[in-house]
């Protein structure tokens, strides 16, 4: 009893590429909004000297995490950054001095109980590194009176094509992952740990199984079918535990907390070193990239700097995606900075890698979109209801459950923009 998905050509041409350090860029632009939730207030002013790991933005809101400088250097200005959603946020521009001097006093956090653990995780600037960027301390800081959470699920499915950051994390930072598991078990009273990995990463499965035998034999590592969207939260929770996160519920309602494997590895590293989240591993790939690779990129580096490092030909670029090709967002300006949630940068040639695109024809009612929808929606019916602005049908048929995985648009032989229509329909229902 698994949620079925669909087969995607995974194109993981960087799975064997060991992570390399990006040469220090001359300038970084660090956005004050890096995660889901509230934007941070700027804590520095132009002219200030900042050091690696220094907090440069914070907020008193619970749904937010602080932002730290990823480089040492001089603040040259505070600018505005237009984000994908159409909103703007403040951005701290820093000219690097090349020394990468660490802030004094960076040391492993002192943790005694669940509360201090969550506080430390917040101070680390940690948010979900899988892409959605949900503040991790909010996930871990669930109300212990209300929820009986006994299971940690580590999402290492990495079902998007091209992306291999999580895969490399499992191979290169295995110890950190198990450190984090130990800490979460200890402080949050969690008993069961499941790690779900898609079968297309057999080496990662082996390494993780070997380490589980060494450190903690209660950690269950499950090889999942290589089917998209295996890594969607509701899907992986169901496929690993059989628990159904119902409409309107959060994972804690069914007793689980879900963390991405890279988030987990970061927490482990932070507990050991005290170094906040200032850089991340990401995959640079796509058919316009000459040297596809995994790089460790300081947060705030321009997308351009990363692309040129990976031998991307500027003349060939037609489209650049931040994230995976199924759920990532297109970039409109290559000078925008990499943020904490960026799991990959994919540069595609114009028209390349996107066969049959944009020639939309009539729906032939083939039912493919209905068969692939992981949450059991009927995208073709929803599309027609949206075109008629039929709010009643849209809400009755639960368009709000759509997580925009894009499977329906992917399989549609008429190349209709079904997933896009679902998002517009959700927005329409919100304006009621």
């Amino acid at each position: 009893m698994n949620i079925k998905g669909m087969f995607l050509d995974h194109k993981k041409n960087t799975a064997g590429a060991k992570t390399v350090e990006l040469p220090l860029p001359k300038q970084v632009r660090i956005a004050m909004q890096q995660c889901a939730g509230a934007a941070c207030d700027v804590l520095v002013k132009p002219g200030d000297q900042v050091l690696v790991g220094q907090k440069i933005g914070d907020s008193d809101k619970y749904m937010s995490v602080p932002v730290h400088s990823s480089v040492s250097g001089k603040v040259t200005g505070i600018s505005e950054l237009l984000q994908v959603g159409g909103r703007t946020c403040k951005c701290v521009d820093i000219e690097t001095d090349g020394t990468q001097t660490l802030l004094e006093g960076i040391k492993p956090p002192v943790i005694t109980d669940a509360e201090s653990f969550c506080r430390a995780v917040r101070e680390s600037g940690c948010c979900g590194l899988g892409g959605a960027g949900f503040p991790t301390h909010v996930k871990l800081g669930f109300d212990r009176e209300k929820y009986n959470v006994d299971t940690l699920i580590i999402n290492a499915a990495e079902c998007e094509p091209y992306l291999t950051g999580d895969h490399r994390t499992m191979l290169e930072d295995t110890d950190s992952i198990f450190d984090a598991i130990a800490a979460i078990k200890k402080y949050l009273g969690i008993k069961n740990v499941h790690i779900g990995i898609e079968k297309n990463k057999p080496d990662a499965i082996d390494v993780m199984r070997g380490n589980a035998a060494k450190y903690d034999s209660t950690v269950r590592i499950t090889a999942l079918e290589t089917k998209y969207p295996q890594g969607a939260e509701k899907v992986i929770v169901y496929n690993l535990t059989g628990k159904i996160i119902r409409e309107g519920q959060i994972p804690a309602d069914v007793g689980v907390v879900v963390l991405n494997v890279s988030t987990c590895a970061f927490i482990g590293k932070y507990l050991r070193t005290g170094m906040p989240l200032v850089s991340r591993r990401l995959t640079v790939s796509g058919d316009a990239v000459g040297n596809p690779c995994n790089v460790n990129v300081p947060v705030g580096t321009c997308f351009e700097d990363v692309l040129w490092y990976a031998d991307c030909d500027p003349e060939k670029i037609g489209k650049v995606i931040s994230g995976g090709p199924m759920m990532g967002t297109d970039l409109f300006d290559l000078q925008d900075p990499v943020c904490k949630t960026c799991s990959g940068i994919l540069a595609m040639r114009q028209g390349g890698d996107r066969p049959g695109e944009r020639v939309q024809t009539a729906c032939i009612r083939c039912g493919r979109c209905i068969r692939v929808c992981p949450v059991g929606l009927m995208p073709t019916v929803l599309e027609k209801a949206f075109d008629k602005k039929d709010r009643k049908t849209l809400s009755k048929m639960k368009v709000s459950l759509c997580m925009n995985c894009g499977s329906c648009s992917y399989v549609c032989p008429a190349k209709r923009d079904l997933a896009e229509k679902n998002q517009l329909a959700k927005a329409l229902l919100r304006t009621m």
Partner: protein
Amino acid sequence: MKDLTVSPSPHIRSNVTTSRIMLHVMIALLPALVMSAVLFGAEALILTGVCMLSAFVWERLCNIVMKRPNTTGDLSALVTGMILAFNLPPSLPYWMGIIGTFAAIVITKQIFGGLGQNFANPAIVGRIVLMLSFTGEMTSWSKPLVVPDAVTSATPLVASSGQYSYLDLFLGFHTGCLGEVCAAALIAGGLYLVVMRVIVPHIPLAYVGTVFVFSWIAGRDPVYQILSGGLLLGAIFMATDYVTSPVSNSGKVIFGIGCGVLTCVIRFYANYPEGVSFAILLMNIVTPYIDLLTRRRPFGTAPVKKEAAENEK
């Protein structure tokens, strides 16, 4: 550097397109076409060609007259023409075939809004129009060339059971419409469609299974009923038409069972010897209701209770 393309996700699309699906259907129909050429000679091929060409021309003319974009590229008109030809006796005058494709493409498909909007299978309506208009020509069967001793003109459904062996029926050595006679070729085409993921096997299996059970209960020879007439052509290629069959798998099963029951009722108890086209047409009409009844319940939602539904009103 050129401008960047910005579009909503997903940024990749599968290589399955409508025209590719239609091409697969035509490839699946090829074995049956080859067999009909072997059995009935060149006139079977010419009639098929006339139907395909005229369907294509009708579609293009409709596009021009209705000031719509050119939709002939999706190849659906060619498929309709081909399937309609398969439903005609090989000796049918060509101009009747052209009338058939007119009824199929212009009346049934384009006037209702083109591909995806028609409520009935165009080829079936085309066949029924010809059947009712030219009953004589539509029921005069030429005997297969390779079976010199085949007895006259009755289709196996009318002829007494036992006139043809199962093997003859399976291989196509009997009278009938040009594409429906060779069961082996049709089944091969059906398997191709399932393997290429063009169709799911629910409708053909439910349809054929129902006919088997119904015939057996009614005291007829079930295998004979399945192999003769247009049953396999209908079940594999016509009842599975995306546009006019239910979208969900459970709906497809209901649809197939309905087709099977209606086919048997018409064959056994009504005036027409063959009921496949009428059965599929009738089920086409109830397809929207089957779709309503078989809507999937989204993951993690509670079943809609009667009370709650009434309160909503």
